[in-house]
């Protein structure tokens, strides 16, 4: 939670090129997408809830669904999900803020999470992070002006045999070098 090197889960809203819906009057936005699952998604929510002895068990999976659908988890999304579970919104907020994979602010279209734990550190993770910061013109924890990439420094992703490494969206990118980072950036539109 503290740190000499800033570790942030979500980029500052101003950097992301989006307004923070939690602090902005929504009426100023042109046709904001409504926070609502489709009928099909609601059926999936009910299926997931039915898998657990107490439907609350499905909260993490449903929050993953919500983030995939709405891009990140705003306070409005938290309240909506809370309604699906008949839980107080504060409970959902407590969960969302506890886990690093839930973004409370808009994130870039791509997320690069560079491991900076011990094995990756020994293999030059800081050089990789600095290289990416230079290329993207942002610092770790931030999102590029064009909303393309969010860069993070994260704790052990458990691929230490191929250090330094990063998670790029769903994929693990192993044995990183500056050149390999450049190739990866090129492929991220």
């Amino acid at each position: 939670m503290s740190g000499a090197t800033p570790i942030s889960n979500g980029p500052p809203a101003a950097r992301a090129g989006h307004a923070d819906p939690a602090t902005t009057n929504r009426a100023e936005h042109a046709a904001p997408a409504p926070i609502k699952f489709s009928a099909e998604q609601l059926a999936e929510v009910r299926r997931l809830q039915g898998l657990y002895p107490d439907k609350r068990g499905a909260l993490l999976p449903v929050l993953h669904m919500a983030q995939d659908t709405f891009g990140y988890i705003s306070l409005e999304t938290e309240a909506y999900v809370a309604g699906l579970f008949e839980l107080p919104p504060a409970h959902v907020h407590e969960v969302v803020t506890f886990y690093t994979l839930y973004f409370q602010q808009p994130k870039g279209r791509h997320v690069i999470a560079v491991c900076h734990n011990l094995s990756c550190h020994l293999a030059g993770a800081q050089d990789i992070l600095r290289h990416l910061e230079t290329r993207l013109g942002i610092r770790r924890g931030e999102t590029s002006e064009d909303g393309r990439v969010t860069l993070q420094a994260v704790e052990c992703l458990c691929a230490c045999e191929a250090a330094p490494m990063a998670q790029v969206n769903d994929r693990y990118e192993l044995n990183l070098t500056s050149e390999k980072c450049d190739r990866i950036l090129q492929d991220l539109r």
Partner: protein
Amino acid sequence: MAEIVLMRNFDRPDSHTLTAYRNASGYTAWTKAQTMEPAVLVDEVKKSNLRGLGGAGFPTGMKWSFIPKAHTGPVYLVVNADEGEPGTFKDRYLLEHDPHALIEGMLITARAIRSTLGFVYIRGEYVQPWRRFSAAVKEAYDAGLLGQGFEVVIHRGAGAYICGEETGLLSSLEGKKGWPKIKPPFPAIKGAFGQPTIVNNVETLCCVPPIIQHGAAWFAGLGTKTQGGTRMYSMSGRVKKPGVYEASVSITLRQLIEKAGGVSGTGRLKGVVPGGGSAAILTADEIDVTMDVDGLKNAGTMVGSAGVIVMDESVSIPEALFVLARFYAHESCGQCTPCRESTGWIEKMVHRILEGHGRKDDLDTILDVAKRGGGTTICAFYDGAIGPYISYIEKFRSEFEALCRA
């Protein structure tokens, strides 16, 4: 010649598929187990001396036997696939390369503990392993292996190291933040959703089918007197051939480093973390220890998850400690005051030393704070953190002092 048990199928083409697993005699242990009474299965695993491979090293059969005999309600089996200990990556290999071994281990275990519902908690970042394992579960359902008295639910985590702690994992599975729970009651008495629950690590459960197939005596004979079997060692840091290696639990740390090609970098060893980031560091002249639970305990450290991180002479120990201190400060769940406060302050102090603004008495302050907090918290997270705090400073004090002003 060491026996290969857990990684036996890794080199087979499409080892993750049901066909390949069946071709390698997969699910024959499950067939055999179905002819055995649950109590006999528990007894067999007790006699095998299998000990938990996730970190704590608790005897697996004994854990199973804690399920209350008179309990008539549901019993849950929870698989801890929330791998996150710095330096550990073995469960990722098992999920990706031999997912059916885990499913078979779950089936046998479920019979032993009379469970009809299992949850597999996979860390959220493990997208590829999750896809692989999900495909295998689907195959197992289609083949009628699952769904005939035992159901499996795959649950994805959302990024929190503490959810690898078994009661933190259960809180998370229940849809809450991953705060560990006070024990007792232990999960075997009151676990997931208030019901008796067995939480086992992926690798631990993958040992179960071979034990049932080849017998407890065979498995026990692979290890030491107090721990049976082989295990997978995650070798990383300054070694020439990093990767996952399987060997008996009786192998020495020196032999393991040789297996991984020896020390890289300067070629001269400075220190080794033998059991994941939370294990106390060993110096170059402390590596003639066996890697079983008791061997490393007697050496003042722990085998934990068997994640071995090697550091050659060029590595700065204060820097290595800072990286770990930052990790503990970031991952402390914040529930217990000694852990929440100390991890943050110790990170700041180590950072100050690295920046050249430290004082020599800072080192004693860190040691004092670290030692006071041990054993005062709900879970073992902080006890894990003080392993590195204390050992890095006590064993490499002059390196820290050289960075201090006065």
